[in-house]
């Protein structure tokens, strides 16, 4: 069976036959990877947009998009084309440089974060030794994009939304970090491939007893807040702040925020899937048995995307069920509930790791 890593390897071999210069070779490969990445991210956000609409529709006893393309699947393409043709308005009194830069910062940070994610065995853009640290630090740059957008719009709603977002992301970074550390403590490595390989005899969520389960729940809640989705969408808060920090954006700049939101959604779910649900690792129990071999026949990227989309669905499920929190409750939830719980939790996880009590 051909795996994704073999395909990548074959391409590399072919290219190195054609291009002998080392530097040129890596530049060419980078360009190829970049183009594939860009294309697939746009496709991904199209798909997530379609998925969100359909999930929302079925939960709200309606049909959802069904006119453009088969079962409405091309609706989001039509919307993108519409956004492309719309005028990208810049308000007169806005800070034009910041206003126009903010969407790009949002998109660029999210694209950077995609690098260390492992899609399949040996199929990874950049298997850095600080994978988890890299993801959690780079993804927090996106708050700067939001603050820039809110500040530069010269709109009071935008400003309120941006300030809310700043407070929210700074708070939730803490518990998202602590829940990531739980897995890092257990595996003893920040490298993504190591984390995945450590789950060859069972996913962490099964191996790690209740503390890892708690860390997983906290991770899901905190990451929902991190990417500004309902019930934590205070930065946008349609019924309060009309559209929050992107009130003044239109056309393609608005679409960029949307793109960034969906890629962020994908990233946090991919991280959750990698750290807690074994990434591309098939469902294994114990070391070597028939069940594990049967599971191995399903390719790794199917496992990876299956788990990721399951988590995405759960987050969408949240969005279409819950009302929004108030700003003080949002911060209460973090500082009074999630943070103390995850601090105690990290202690428990450390004890488990030291004594080797996990399976």
């Amino acid at each position, binding site marked *: 069976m051909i795996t994704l890593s073999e395909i990548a390897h074959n391409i590399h071999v072919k290219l190195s036959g054609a291009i002998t210069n080392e530097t040129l070779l890596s530049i060419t490969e980078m360009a190829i990877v970049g183009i594939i990445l860009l294309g697939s991210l746009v496709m991904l956000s199209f798909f997530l947009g379609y998925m969100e609409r359909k999930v929302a529709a079925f939960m*709200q006893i309606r049909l959802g998009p069904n006119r453009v393309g088969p079962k409405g699947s091309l609706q989001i393409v039509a919307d993108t084309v519409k956004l492309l043709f719309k005028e990208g308005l810049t308000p007169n009194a806005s800070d034009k440089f910041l206003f126009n830069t903010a969407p790009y910062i949002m998109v660029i940070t999210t694209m950077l974060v995609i690098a260390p994610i492992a899609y399949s065995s040996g199929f990874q853009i950049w298997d850095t030794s600080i994978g988890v640290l890299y993801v959690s630090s780079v993804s927090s740059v996106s708050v700067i994009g939001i603050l820039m957008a809110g500040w530069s719009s010269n709109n*009071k709603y935008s400003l309120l939304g941006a300030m809310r977002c700043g407070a929210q992301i700074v708070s939730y970074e803490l518990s998202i970090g602590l829940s990531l550390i739980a897995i890092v403590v257990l595996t003893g490595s920040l490298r993504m491939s190591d984390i995945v390989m450590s789950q060859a005899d069972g996913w962490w969520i099964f191996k790690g007893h209740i503390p890892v389960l708690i860390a997983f729940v906290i991770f899901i809640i905190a990451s929902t807040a991190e990417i500004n989705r309902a*019930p934590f969408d205070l930065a946008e808060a349609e*019924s309060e702040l*009309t559209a929050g920090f992107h009130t003044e954006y239109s056309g393609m700049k608005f679409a960029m925020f949307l793109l960034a939101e969906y890629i962020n959604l994908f990233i946090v779910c991919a991280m959750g899937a990698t750290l807690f649900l074994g990434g591309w690792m098939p469902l294994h129990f114990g070391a070597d048995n028939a069940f594990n071999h049967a599971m191995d026949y399903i390719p790794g990227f199917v496992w990876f995307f299956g788990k990721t989309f399951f988590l995405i669905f759960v987050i969408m499920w949240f969005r279409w069920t819950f*009302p*929004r929190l108030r700003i003080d409750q949002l911060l209460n939830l973090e500082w009074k509930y999630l943070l103390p719980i995850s601090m105690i939790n990290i202690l428990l996880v450390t004890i488990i790791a030291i004594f080797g009590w996990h399976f």
Partner: protein
Amino acid sequence: MIEHNLLEPDMITEDGDFVINIGPQHPSTHGVLHLKVWLDGETVKKVEPHLGYIHRSIEKMCESLSYRQYIFSTSRMDYLSAHINNQACALAVEMGLGVEVPDRAKVIRTILAELTRLASHALWWGCMGLDLGAVTPFFYAFREREFINDIMEETCGARLTQNFIVPGGLMADIHPNFVPKTKELIKMFRANIDEYNQLLTGNVIFQQRTQNVGFLSKEAAISYGTSGPVARASGVSCDVRKHYPYDAYDRVQFKEILGTTGDSWERYVIRIDEMRESLSIIEQLIDNIPEGDIVAKTKQVIKLPKGEFYSRVETARGELGVLLVSDGGSTPYRVKFRSPNFSNLSALGHIAKGSKIGDLVAMMATLDLVIPDVDR
């Protein structure tokens, strides 16, 4: 001397305050309400409603319409309880004429009024969820509302602005499908209120958002002239159906649900309970619609005797009063609509002081404002 003056000093507003204009085009003002809000960070210092964006001077218009015609225009005031508005107008004319409405018409009017109330409360419930950021309740609420609208459409010929009432009774008899469909609705709605509770009422986020915010004390509720569920949540017994029964309300048993605390949560719960009471009222009447005429004989051109006639009904939002001043002619000399929303809105500034901006939206939702009724 009793101290009645509830004029508390406003929180001090300064020139440098963060002032935002919520509305007239804003997703949660449900129409064209314009609130000028002084903020201190996220905290509301002062709220000032600016009205008149949909003022059509219906009162002036009615002065040139005959007593048969002026009823239709009131459907456009509180469009969610259009039928009940029409009922109030017809009651004022009937009071002036001194005609007795046939029993059958009275009962049908009452059933239709309660259906309207159910539809209105269902819509309010959906919008309440929407204002708090949950989109899904809106669609569940519209499922029931559409069913009620279909019943209305079959009998009255229109879904929203029915105009089914004429002075002295009704325009037509009920449709043969009316009774079975209404019974079906009662069964369906009961089950769906449980769904409402499962989705929103029981939700901990929702409870946290509404409990202990937006207090309206009993004294303030009375002084601000609030009525309907808003006043009842503060413990003011003010149900017109109970205290001044009209049409067939004197022959049904129902509870007037009273709250104690008067916060947003209480206003929410009271409306949910009121839906159950409305269902029970319909249930009591639907099998006992008496036979007989549907309209009392009136002259084609109605002339009221000289004087003032005040009729009142309980709409989905509170007490609607119609003051007809007649000079003996065929058109009213002056019509005054005492609209419940106008008084309820005046309390908003009092309620919202010191709350968070997110709660201001929730409070507007629990006041259940319909702006065309405020502006008229």
